[in-house]
């Protein structure tokens, strides 16, 4: 049976267990004078039964579904005769896809070696066996769990306590998923990054000024080496982010000041949600706008004033990204400006300062750390943004600071390296994970610093 069908079946079993345990707890309570003489309400006996039924079964199911494919692959590969046994990971994955294509009938077995055909048959039988075995095992565990709980429906058993303890454990596991996700990210990028640095020295990666991740098919090919210098990618990312911040910081900050200090309630209630709409627009829409409207426009303008602009310019991507992060800056600055105590404002106004003088000389300096935190958060947003640059910034890794030129960014390279089929032992693919690592570390640092600043600032005025 398919994993997808087994899941609802287990849930149905859990419901059945619930109903059975419920009626049994009532039956148990009857001779001793009603449910008031049970240690727990019937609901808890029933809930305990369905937990015992579902949780172990689902854990086994998840583990099985998670490791089934890998284990079967390992068995199939080891069954191959020695002359066919793969000598590298790339060869192994090729063989595996050939085997599974033959097994599923997409590839005719006529042209494949006998060993491979036999392996395909083995794969088929293993898959079928695994499915049957898993179905039986999962259902057996579910029934066993339910029947254990069924035997534990008795007046002296405190089912409520047990159910609550289990629930608490489930809640804890859910909270810990955040840690697991972080670990997963770190694990996945570190492993591949480590493998990447076995091919390419760390120092060359960090200080190299040329990026062309092509790997040769033959050793004697021209340019067979490939260059993995990350400097052009980082200047590209920084160039676009700086343009974006140059657009977003003044606009966002001044909007926030106007909305919090000058605007009437009505203007505020209309303008604020509209500004926030800019944050809700999907990045692919901004990418579309940047690539098909802003970039051609910039090119035309640049040509009209006699400058050479490429059709995919850093300026187009940066401008549109700037529009995207205006609401981040404005809502964060709005918060910190509002957090400045009213007494400071009143004091300044009472001394005869105008509103703008109060803003510039009193509130802004007081709010500055919080605003800096907001800008850092926006910067990390800009560095990690993907779709706008994928669609509008281009692929050529130019080491340039000319905003009318095409540049490429870390995120663009990750996407181009990993979209489509890839082999997992070439430095080309692995370099994407090294870039991911770099991106993760940089944005994490920015976030940690920004959150620290914002928190410190908040404590100051609380």
């Amino acid at each position, binding site marked *: 049976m398919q994993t997808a069908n087994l899941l609802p079946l287990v849930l149905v079993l859990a419901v059945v267990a619930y109903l059975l345990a419920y009626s049994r707890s009532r039956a148990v309570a009857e001779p001793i004078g009603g449910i008031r003489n049970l240690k727990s309400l019937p609901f808890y006996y029933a809930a305990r039964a369905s937990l015992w039924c579902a949780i172990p079964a689902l854990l086994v199911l998840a583990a099985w579904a998670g490791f089934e494919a890998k284990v079967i692959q390992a068995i199939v590969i080891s069954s191959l005769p020695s002359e066919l046994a793969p000598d590298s990971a790339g060869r192994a994955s090729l063989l595996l896809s050939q085997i599974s294509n033959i097994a599923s009938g997409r590839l005719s077995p006529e042209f494949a070696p006998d060993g491979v055909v036999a392996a395909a048959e083995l794969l088929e039988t293993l898959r079928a066996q695994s499915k049957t075995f898993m179905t039986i095992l999962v259902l057996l565990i579910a029934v066993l769990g339910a029947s254990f709980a069924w035997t534990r429906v008795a007046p002296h058993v405190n089912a409520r306590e047990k159910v609550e303890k289990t629930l608490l454990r489930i809640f804890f596991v859910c909270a810990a998923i955040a840690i697991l996700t972080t670990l997963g990210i770190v694990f996945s990028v570190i492993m591949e990054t480590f493998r990447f640095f076995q091919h390419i020295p760390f120092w060359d990666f960090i200080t190299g000024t040329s990026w062309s991740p092509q790997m040769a098919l033959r050793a004697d090919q021209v340019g067979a080496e490939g260059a993995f210098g990350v400097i052009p990618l980082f200047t590209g990312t920084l160039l676009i982010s700086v343009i974006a911040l140059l657009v977003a910081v003044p606009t966002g900050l001044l909007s926030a000041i*106007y909305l919090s200090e000058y605007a009437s309630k009505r203007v505020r209630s209309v303008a604020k949600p509209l500004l926030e709409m800019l944050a809700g627009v999907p990045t692919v829409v901004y990418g579309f706008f940047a690539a098909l409207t802003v970039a051609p426009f910039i090119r035309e303008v640049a040509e009209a004033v006699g400058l050479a602009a490429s059709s995919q310019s850093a300026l187009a991507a940066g401008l549109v990204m700037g529009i995207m992060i205006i609401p981040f800056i404005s809502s964060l600055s709005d918060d910190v400006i509002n957090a400045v105590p009213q007494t400071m404002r009143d004091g300044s106004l009472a001394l005869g300062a105008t509103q703008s003088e109060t803003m510039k000389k009193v509130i802004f300096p007081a709010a500055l750390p919080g605003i800096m935190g907001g800008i850092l958060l926006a910067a990390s947003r800009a560095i990690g943004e993907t779709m706008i640059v994928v669609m509008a910034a281009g692929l050529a890794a130019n080491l340039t600071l000319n905003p009318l030129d095409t540049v490429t960014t870390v995120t663009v390279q990750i996407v181009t390296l990993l979209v489509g089929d890839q082999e997992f032992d070439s430095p080309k693919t692995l370099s994407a994970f090294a870039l991911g690592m770099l991106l993760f570390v940089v944005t*994490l640092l920015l976030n940690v610093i920004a959150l620290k600043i914002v928190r410190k600032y908040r404590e100051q005025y609380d």
Partner: protein
Amino acid sequence: MTDQRSQADIVRRSLKKRYRKERRFRAYGVLAISIALGALVILFADIIGKGWTGFIKTTVTLEVVLDSQSMYLDDPTDADQRAMADFAAPIIAALQKQVPEAARSQDLRQLYRLVGTYGSNDISDLLRANPEMLNTTQTLTFLASDAVSVYVKHRDNPSYSVRLSEQQQQWVDQLMEKGVIKTAFNDVFFTSGDSREPSNAGILGALVGSLLTLVVTLAIAFPVGVAAAIYLEEFAPQNKITDFIEVNINNLAAVPSIIFGLLGLAVIINTFGMPRSVPVVGGLVLALMTLPTIIISSRAAIKSVPPSIREAAEGIGASKMQVVLHHVLPLAMPGMLTGSIIGMAQALGETAPLLLIGMVAFIVDVPDGFFSAATVLPVQIYLWASSAEQGFIELASAGIMILLTFLISMNALAIWLRKRLERRW
């Protein structure tokens, strides 16, 4: 005395300048807001302007004589015969009847190019389904070819290049006057999957893919997020582990989305051997991505339930878990739902992580389950926007309009929920 007066004079004299500065500062603020809102307006206007033609299709309606001789077909139920048959012949004959001056075989070939690539397939499918129609005359409507479609819809737009010869343009004008070539509401766009031909491409496949992916995301992220929020807010002891979890959640909320794509690729696909391009994997990745949003908003909702409720429940003997599940959770539910809808809207618009787990494949069929290869709305928009064929641009903007409609209605629902159900204490 004189000192004071001179100071007052200085102040008075500087007043004009200071007020001017004040007004200038205010104007900067208005300018900034106008820039931001102007950008929003331009963005929407640009997309609507580029995309409204995506909702229009161009059709060719012809009286087609389905005679067996010209098609070399006696038995439409026979697959071998169908494979050999010439289904273009009746269309060419019908077109020639409308444009009598086209006589040379070269002209006829040009004429046939006015009808879309799949015109002959339509006749083949029709005859297979209704074999009795052989040797009858039918009025059939075909999709016009993409070149005709671009010519009809965008002939005045300089950014489109018309790829019809002068002769063909003349014919199209003639046929439009006769009412053979018409424009109509593009129902194909809403009823089919992707295609290599812009006029046959639709958004349904991507819509269904998005729906399946979101179902998985919601099914994972909502219960896990709510459970995590309950633990952290109500049960977590003040210790290092709890602190670490909290720092983790705050940082995860700010990790670039593409990193979650790397996680999905390395862990879910490579380590656990799950298939690529399927809604289950996409949904899992998006669930991990939206989890922090849901946890943070659910915690805020739990925090807003006043302690008096908890104390009252505890006072009549409820256990801690009963207090939470029977009283706090129902009262916090509207806030949690609002946060989850916003998280789902975020997931619906997300593209980058899905590119890495292979949801960018060219998929014609509408996905029929959680394990069938699919793409999603934003990825479909990306694919169309980066396609070289000019007819896809309007489809991409039309797709954006649909995506934005969904997002705006989801956000409106969240705001409505907040206004309607959220209680202020």
